[in-house]
C-alpha cells in the first residue's frame, strides 16, 4: 500500500490496477454489445416466436451498452488522471449528456410533428360515425394508422380502406392499432430512434431500431389475433399492403419484417 496523500480518513481507496482492469472489462462488454451481440441477435430465428422476450432483450442490450460505455469512459479517465477525478470524469459525463440530449431532441421533434399532424387531421378528416377516437380520411389509398399520444390517441382509417375491407378485416386492423396504443409501442420506438440518431455509426443502434419496429408489429398482430382468426388478419394485410402505392416495387424488407407474415402461417 502506498501512502494515501490527501485522502480523507476512512475513504475507500481503490487500487489503481483494479480501476484499469475494470475499465478494460467494461470496454470489452460495450464493444461486444455494440457489434457482435446485436448482429448475432438480429440473425436469430427465435424472436419471431417470442417477440416480448426479444423486445426485453433489446432494451437490456441498449441500456447495458450505454451504461457500460459510460462506465468504461469514467474508469479510463480515472485510470489516466487519478489525481483529478473531476477532470477524469468529463468524457463520461459528456457522453451521457450527449445521449440524453438526443433523447430530448427526439421527444421534442416527435411531439411537434404529432401536434402538426393532429391539426391537419382536425381539418381534413371527419370523425367516424360510430367509433370513438377514430377519424376517416377521404382518400382512395387504403391506409390505417394511429397517432399515439398517451390519452389522446387517434386512429385514422381511409375511405379506401373502409371500402375495401369486410367487417372482420376491419376488426383486425383496429385491434392491431389498439395494440400499439395500449402497449405504448411509441415510447419504446422513441427511445430506440433517439439511440439511433445519437449513434448512427454503431450497428447496434440501426439494427435495434429496425428489429424493435418489426417486433412491435408482431405484438400488435398478436393483439389482433385474439379477436380474429389468422387468415382474417392475413387477408387484411394483403388488402392494405398489396394495393397501396409502391406495392409493385416494394422490396423484400428485413428478415424480421418478413417474419411478421411467416408467423401467421403456423
Amino acid at each position, binding site marked *: 500500500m502506498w501512502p494515501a496523500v490527501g485522502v480523507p480518513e476512512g475513504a475507500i481507496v481503490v487500487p489503481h490496477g483494479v480501476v484499469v482492469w475494470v475499465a478494460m472489462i467494461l470496454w470489452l462488454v460495450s464493444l461486444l454489445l455494440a457489434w457482435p451481440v446485436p448482429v448475432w441477435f438480429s440473425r436469430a430465428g427465435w424472436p419471431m416466436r417470442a417477440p416480448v422476450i426479444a423486445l426485453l432483450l433489446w432494451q437490456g442490450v441498449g441500456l447495458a451498452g450505454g451504461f457500460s460505455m459510460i462506465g468504461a469512459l469514467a474508469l479510463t479517465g480515472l485510470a489516466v488522471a487519478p489525481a483529478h477525478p473531476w477532470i477524469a470524469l468529463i468524457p463520461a459525463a459528456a457522453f451521457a449528456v450527449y445521449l440524453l440530449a438526443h433523447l430530448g431532441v*427526439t421527444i421534442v*421533434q*416527435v411531439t411537434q*410533428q*404529432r401536434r402538426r*399532424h393532429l*391539426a*391537419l*387531421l*382536425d*381539418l*381534413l378528416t*371527419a*370523425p367516424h360515425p360510430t367509433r370513438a377516437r377514430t377519424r376517416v*380520411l377521404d*382518400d382512395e*389509398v387504403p*391506409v*390505417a*394508422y*394511429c*397517432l*399515439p399520444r398517451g390519452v389522446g390517441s387517434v386512429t385514422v382509417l381511409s375511405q379506401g380502406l373502409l371500402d375495401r375491407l369486410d367487417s372482420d378485416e376491419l376488426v383486425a*386492423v383496429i385491434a*392491431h*392499432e389498439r395494440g*400499439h396504443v395500449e402497449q405504448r409501442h*411509441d415510447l419504446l*420506438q*422513441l427511445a430506440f*430512434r433517439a439511440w439511433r440518431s445519437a449513434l448512427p455509426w454503431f450497428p447496434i443502434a440501426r439494427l435495434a431500431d429496425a428489429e424493435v*419496429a418489426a417486433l*412491435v*408489429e408482431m405484438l*400488435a398482430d398478436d393483439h389482433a389475433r385474439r379477436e380474429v382468426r*389468422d*387468415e382474417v388478419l*392475413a*387477408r*387484411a*394485410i*394483403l388488402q*392494405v*399492403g*398489396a394495393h*397501396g*402505392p*409502391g*406495392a409493385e*416495387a*416494394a*422490396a*423484400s*424488407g428485413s428478415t424480421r*419484417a*418478413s417474419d411478421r*407474415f*411467416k408467423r*401467421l*402461417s403456423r
Partner: protein
Amino acid sequence: MANTLGELERAVMDAVWDATEPVTAYDVRDQFETAGRSLAATTLLTVFSRLEKKGFVSSDRSVRPYRYSAVAPREHHVAELMHEVLGGSSDRTAVLERFVGSVSAADAATLQQLLRTEDSRG
C-alpha cells in the same frame, strides 16, 4: 369540448377553401346561418385566430373587418398528410404507427399460401 372546437375549425376551414376570395367572419356566420347553424361572429373570430396561429389561414388587416384566406389549398395539406403517412418507411420518425406498409411480392406469396392452406382445410 376540444372535439367540438376541432369540428368548428374544420367547418370554418371548409368555408375558406370553398370561397373564391378572402372571407370575413361575418361572411362565414351568414353562410352557417343559411345552413341552419347559428354562431356568434366573435366565436368565429376566435376560430380564425386559432387557425391563423396554426398557419392555415392568413389575414388581410388593412381593411375592417379582417379578411381571411387559406395559406394553401386543401389538396396541398392532404398531400402533406399523406406524405407523412406513406413517406419513407425506412426513416419514419416514430410519429405514427401504420397497420402495414407496402408488402413485397415474396411476403404476399407467404400470406396467399396461408390463405390457400386455410381454404383447402375447409
